[in-house]
C-alpha cells in the first residue's frame, strides 16, 4: 500500500483502478491518521466517518463489479466548514452557527457527489473566513503541521493543515483575499483561486460576495486541475457564475509543454520592492531560476496601483461583510438565546460574534454610512476599477504574472493577533487577484519535508480571466521539473 503522504488524487485513482488497494483501506487509514493527528493540529471540526465508510464500500463494490470509475471516485476530501453539506453541521467556525445543520448541498458538493468523492469531514477556519491565520476560529486555532507553534495560514487553515498532515487527500477552501493561496503556501501545498464566476458560490456562506471563490487545496497542480475541472461551470443558482469552455477543461489535464514555451511571464516590479522575509526571498529566487530553465520568456511589467489594493480591499470587503452577516440575527439558522423582544434577541445572539467579525461589521457599516460613502466605499470601487485596468494592460504584454504568495513563511501563533493591520498585510500579494477577479495559484517552490527544520514557501502565478489553463499547465510542468 502507498504511504498516505505520497497519495495524490491521481495515483489514488490509478491504485484503485489497478486494484492495488481498496477505497475502504485508504479511507480507514485516513480516519486513523485523523484520530492520531487532529488532537494536536485541530484541522477538523466534525467528522463524517459513517458516511465516508459507507461510500468507500460502495466504490469498492462498483470496482469489483467491473464498472468504470473517474478520477474522483472514492477520493477522501476535507471540506472547509463554510461550505454546506446536507445534514451535516456548518458553523463557519462561529458560535452563532454552532447548532446549525445544513439543509441542502452547495453546488460544488453536489458536483463532487456526482463523481462519488468522499467527504471525511469539515475543517476549521477563521470565523466566517475572516483572517489569515485560523486563530479567529471560535473553536480554537489550527496548528501548522510543519511546526506546531506556528499558524497554518488562513482562513482555510484547517483544510490546508488536513492535507499537509495526511488527514485528507485534498481539500476545498474559499478565497476572498488569499484564504486558499496563503494557507497553501504556508503548508507546502498547491492552492487555486479560480476566476470570479468560474465556480458556483451557491451553498458557500457568503463573506464578501463580489470577491469570494471556492477552490482546491491539493498536493499537486495536477490534482488542483482535476478538482477544478469537476467543480467549475455555470450554475442557475449563482447568477455570477459563467460557462467554461469544455475543450479547455480537457486541456488542463493534459498539459502541452510546447504551449508552455510560448508563454511570456511578467515580473511586476511593485511586488518585489522589499518587505519579504529572507526565506521567502530565497524561495522565490529558486522558483524563478527553475522557471527560467524551462526556456520561458520573462518581462518586467508595472502594476502601478498595487500599493492601494490593501486599502481598497479593506473598504470593499467589510462593506459586503456588514450586509452579508446581517442575516445571522438569531431569528433564522441558529438561535442561542430566546428573548422577549426582537431587539434584545438580536443583541444577545450577535454578541456571539468574535472580535474580528465585530470589527469588520462595524468597519463596513462605517464605510457605507451616510457622509462617508463617497469618501470610502465609492472611492474604493473606483480604485478597484484602476487595479483591474492595470492587469488588463499587463496582460496585453504577458500571459502569466509571477509574484510572491505571502510576504513571510508561517508565523508564530499569537504573533500578529494584537495588531489587525499587521495581520491584514499577510494578504498584500493575494488581494489584487480577488479585486480584479482573475485566477491565481500558489505552488510550493520545491518539495518540503516535515522534521527538516525548514518551512514551506510558495510562489504565485496569476493570469487572464477564465485562462486557468495557463497557470495549471505551467504549474504541472514546473512540478514535474522539480520532482525529477
Amino acid at each position: 500500500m502507498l504511504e498516505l503522504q505520497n497519495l495524490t488524487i491521481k495515483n489514488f485513482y490509478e491504485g484503485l483502478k489497478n486494484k492495488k488497494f481498496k477505497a475502504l483501506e485508504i479511507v480507514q487509514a485516513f480516519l486513523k491518521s485523523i484520530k492520531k493527528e487532529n488532537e494536536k493540529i485541530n484541522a477538523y471540526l466534525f467528522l463524517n466517518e459513517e458516511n465516508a465508510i459507507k461510500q468507500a464500500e460502495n466504490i469498492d463494490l462498483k470496482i469489483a463489479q467491473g464498472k468504470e470509475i473517474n478520477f474522483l471516485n472514492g477520493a477522501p476530501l476535507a471540506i472547509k466548514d463554510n461550505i454546506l453539506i446536507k445534514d451535516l453541521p456548518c458553523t463557519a467556525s462561529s458560535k452563532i452557527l454552532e447548532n446549525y445543520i445544513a439543509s441542502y448541498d452547495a453546488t460544488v458538493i453536489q458536483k463532487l457527489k456526482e463523481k462519488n468523492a468522499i467527504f471525511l469531514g469539515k475543517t476549521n477556519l477563521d470565523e466566517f473566513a475572516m483572517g489569515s491565520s485560523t486563530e479567529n476560529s471560535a473553536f480554537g486555532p489550527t496548528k501548522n503541521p510543519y511546526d506546531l507553534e506556528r499558524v497554518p495560514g488562513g482562513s482555510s487553515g484547517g483544510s490546508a493543515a488536513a492535507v499537509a498532515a495526511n488527514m485528507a487527500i485534498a481539500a476545498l477552501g474559499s478565497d476572498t483575499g488569499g484564504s486558499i493561496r496563503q494557507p497553501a503556501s504556508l503548508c507546502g501545498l498547491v492552492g487555486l483561486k479560480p476566476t470570479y464566476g468560474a465556480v458556483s458560490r451557491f451553498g458557500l456562506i457568503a463573506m464578501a460576495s463580489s470577491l469570494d471563490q471556492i477552490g482546491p487545496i491539493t498536493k499537486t497542480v495536477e490534482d488542483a486541475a482535476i478538482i477544478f475541472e469537476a467543480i467549475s461551470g455555470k450554475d442557475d443558482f449563482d447568477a455570477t457564475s459563467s460557462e467554461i469552455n469544455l475543450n479547455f477543461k480537457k486541456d488542463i489535464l493534459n498539459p502541452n509543454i510546447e504551449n508552455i514555451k510560448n508563454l511570456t511571464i511578467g515580473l511586476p516590479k511593485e511586488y518585489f520592492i522589499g518587505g519579504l522575509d529572507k526565506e521567502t526571498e530565497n524561495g522565490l529566487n529558486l522558483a524563478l531560476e527553475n522557471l527560467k530553465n524551462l526556456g520561458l520568456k520573462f518581462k518586467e511589467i508595472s502594476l502601478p496601483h498595487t500599493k492601494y489594493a490593501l486599502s481598497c480591499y479593506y473598504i470593499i470587503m467589510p462593506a459586503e461583510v456588514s450586509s452579508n452577516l446581517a442575516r445571522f440575527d438569531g431569528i433564522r439558522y441558529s438561535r442561542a438565546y430566546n428573548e422577549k423582544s426582537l431587539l434584545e434577541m438580536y443583541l444577545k445572539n450577535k454578541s456571539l460574534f468574535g472580535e474580528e467579525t465585530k470589527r469588520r461589521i462595524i468597519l463596513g457599516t462605517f464605510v457605507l454610512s451616510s457622509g462617508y460613502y463617497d469618501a470610502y466605499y465609492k472611492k474604493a470601487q473606483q480604485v478597484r476599477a484602476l487595479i483591474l485596468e492595470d492587469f488588463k494592460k499587463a496582460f496585453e504584454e504577458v500571459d502569466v504574472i509571477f509574484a510572491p504568495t505571502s510576504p513571510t513563511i508561517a508565523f508564530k501563533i499569537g504573533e500578529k493577533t494584537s495588531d489587525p493591520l499587521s495581520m491584514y498585510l499577510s494578504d498584500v500579494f493575494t488581494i489584487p487577484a480577488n479585486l480584479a477577479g482573475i485566477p491565481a495559484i500558489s505552488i510550493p517552490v520545491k518539495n518540503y519535508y516535515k522534521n527538516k527544520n525548514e518551512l514551506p514557501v510558495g510562489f504565485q502565478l496569476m493570469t487572464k480571466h477564465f485562462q486557468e489553463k495557463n497557470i495549471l499547465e505551467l504549474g504541472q510542468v514546473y512540478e514535474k521539473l522539480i520532482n525529477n
Partner: protein
Amino acid sequence: MEIKKETIKHLAELSRIKLTEKEEEHLLKDLAKIINHFNELEEINTSKVLPINGGTNNLNIFREDNPENPYQGQGKESFPENKEGFLNIPSVF
C-alpha cells in the same frame, strides 16, 4: 478624519451589536489606525473613473422561475423554532 467614541456607539447600534466598554475602546483604537491607512487613497485622482462593484461583467442573468426547484421548502427544516412549518419569533408589536 477622526473617529470618536460616539461614532462607534452609533455604528454598533446600526449593526445591532452590543459592545462592552472595553470592546469600544479597542475598536476605537483599531479603527482609527485602519481608517488612517485608507487616507492613502486620496493620492489617486479618480474623478474620471467609473466605479465597479463586482468581479463579473455578467448583466441581467435570468432563469426560468421553475416551481420544481429542488430546494423549495427545505430551509424551514433548519428553523431554530418551527411552528406548523412557520418560523417562530417573539412578537414584534
